[in-house]
């Protein structure tokens, strides 16, 4: 048998068929990530062109490019100020917050092996709401203008630690974590309701508005803080993605394959909580993104967390950016809370994918 025919035999062997099928499947995942990234860039430009000061898409992109590449020598303009000082921080906050919530959802669904898990299942949102209510109604101002933010953040993180401690005493099983989270959620919701009962009409209104969620607080400073937490947390979680996928197959399987299940579960939960806490502290409660972004991603590219985590970040980013763009333009000049729009925009899209795919959720 000459070398050429031997080589042909190797290429045509069933094993190489399986390998090429897997490589194609792998390429599909990469293509999905690239497509959603391009989608975010396009949507960011569109979002930057929308608003009370009308800009064309070309003007929006040119102004963004001028800010990124100052040597292009484009003159400063009103458009530059509007885009770089007002619209882009909001767009960036929507993308980073959506990405953080999407990743947190992917982690929690994977590590708890529960399709209904999301950043708020563990009571993190309730803790943030309680912290914000305490600052608004209780008048806590230790952190000046950031009192609401800091209170929300520390409450969320404290709640996570309490849940973690309770769950650890029961062996850090998914069931123990979910039960501890739900118990804490009800407790903190009761505290928030009690504070609202005590508050004045203005204070209650402020709390309710905060709880509806909004990225309107965005400026480059706040974006930077949320971005820093995301840029630390997300790469670590992607690094642990293979372990998370295997944990999804069961604790005993994961343990048998060499994974320190409790340690991975604990660390990834803390990072997921950190991501959620940073978003809720600045933007309030934005539901749905954390729940559906991982599902949408998995429906398209399957369950490998090495791709699901970045995919959920991108889908979360585009979902929240899309929702915020609709929220601030649909009834302009009235700006709707983005928390309302995420469900209104996301649910039809999610149902479309869900019905089309006709797959079991899990």
């Amino acid at each position, binding site marked *: 048998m000459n070398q050429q025919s031997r080589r042909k035999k190797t290429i045509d062997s069933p094993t*190489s068929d399986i390998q090429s099928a897997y490589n194609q499947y792998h390429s599909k995942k990469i293509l999905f990530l690239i497509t959603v990234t391009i989608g975010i860039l396009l949507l960011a430009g569109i979002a930057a062109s929308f608003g009370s000061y009308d800009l064309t898409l070309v003007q929006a992109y040119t102004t963004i490019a001028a800010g990124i590449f100052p040597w292009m020598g484009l003159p400063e303009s009103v458009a530059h100020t509007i885009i770089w000082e007002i619209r882009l921080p909001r767009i960036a906050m929507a993308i980073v917050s959506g990405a953080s919530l999407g990743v947190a959802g992917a982690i929690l669904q994977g590590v708890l*092996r529960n399709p209904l898990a999301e950043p708020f299942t563990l009571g993190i949102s309730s803790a943030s709401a309680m912290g914000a209510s305490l600052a608004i109604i209780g008048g806590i101002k230790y952190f000046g203008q950031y009192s609401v933010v800091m209170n929300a953040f520390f409450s969320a993180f404290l709640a996570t630690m309490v849940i973690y401690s309770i769950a650890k005493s029961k062996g850090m099983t998914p069931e123990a974590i979910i039960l501890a989270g739900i118990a804490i959620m009800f407790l903190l919701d009761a505290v928030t309701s009690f504070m609202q009962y005590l508050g004045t009409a203005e204070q209650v209104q402020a709390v309710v508005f905060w709880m509806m969620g909004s990225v309107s607080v965005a400026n480059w400073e706040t974006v930077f803080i949320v971005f820093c937490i995301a840029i630390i947390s997300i790469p670590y979680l992607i690094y642990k993605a293979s372990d998370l996928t295997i944990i999804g197959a069961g604790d005993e399987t994961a343990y048998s394959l*060499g*994974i320190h299940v409790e340690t991975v579960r604990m660390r990834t939960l803390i990072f997921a909580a950190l991501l959620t806490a940073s978003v809720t502290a600045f933007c309030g409660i934005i539901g749905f993104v954390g729940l559906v972004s991982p599902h949408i991603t998995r*429906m398209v590219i399957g369950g490998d967390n090495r791709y699901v985590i970045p995919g959920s970040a991108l889908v979360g980013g585009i979902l929240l950016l899309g929702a915020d763009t609709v929220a601030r333009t649909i009834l302009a000049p009235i700006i709707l809370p983005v928390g309302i729009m995420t469900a209104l925009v996301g649910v039809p899209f999610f149902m479309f994918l869900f019905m089309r795919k006709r797959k079991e959720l899990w």
Partner: protein
Amino acid sequence: MVNVKLNDVCFSYPGADILHNVTFSIGPGQMTGLIGPNGSGKSTLIKCIDTILKPKGSILLNGKDILTMERVALARSIGLVPQNGTSAMDSTVFETVLMGRRPHSAWRISEEDIHKVADALERLGIGNLAMRDFSHLSGGQKQMVLLARAICQEPDVLLLDEPTSALDIRHQLEVLEIVNHLVKERNMSAIIALHDLNLGARYTDSMVILREGKIFSAGKPDELYTPDMIEEVYGVIAEVISVHGKPHVVPIRPAEYGHYIFAESLQNERNMEIPA
């Protein structure tokens, strides 16, 4: 050359002692069957050997106590085929088998890993399922996939927890033939928990019979299989005949003995209560 040695292995859940002083050893190229009635401790013993559960006593792998070994190092040496395997959500068969490469590979999946997965799938005749969703497979297909995952792990010791319980007779034979072939070809050791005494007799080199967490007897199947052993361990009257040189257990229906005689003999010989 691998050698597994269990010395006085004991395990208890709170309020319930499961295993008592289990001691046996197996050598390379050997298949050892664990048999015994439900609740006799077979699955618990398998989990103890894989250190999913932490037993007392010692389990030595080539003279080294596995309870002190690093988790990843142990995963390179011991592979488990669980009884009821699940996979991660929306995972394909290929991705499920790829998990078996986790003890050997880093974050990035190498061409070698991909080749080994494809090879294992092809070897078990399930290459056509590679891109199918694991959750959509039949019980038998899932069992084959989990075996492929354990093969990809390239362990020295293979633990199988009732791998044939969900399979039809053809697939039972297929799985055990593959395991038998692997054990001989790679000089591995395999410990396999089984309910089917006759399959155990055909495929294992030695047997450990468990009853209430203790070793009732151990040795070669043709030495162990006797009507008395079946009756004492399972409480069942059976004949043991020879088929192609291997012992074959034929259980006798109580009706064939006469229900009254069967019940009376049990009451007299073992002082058991006659059910109403």
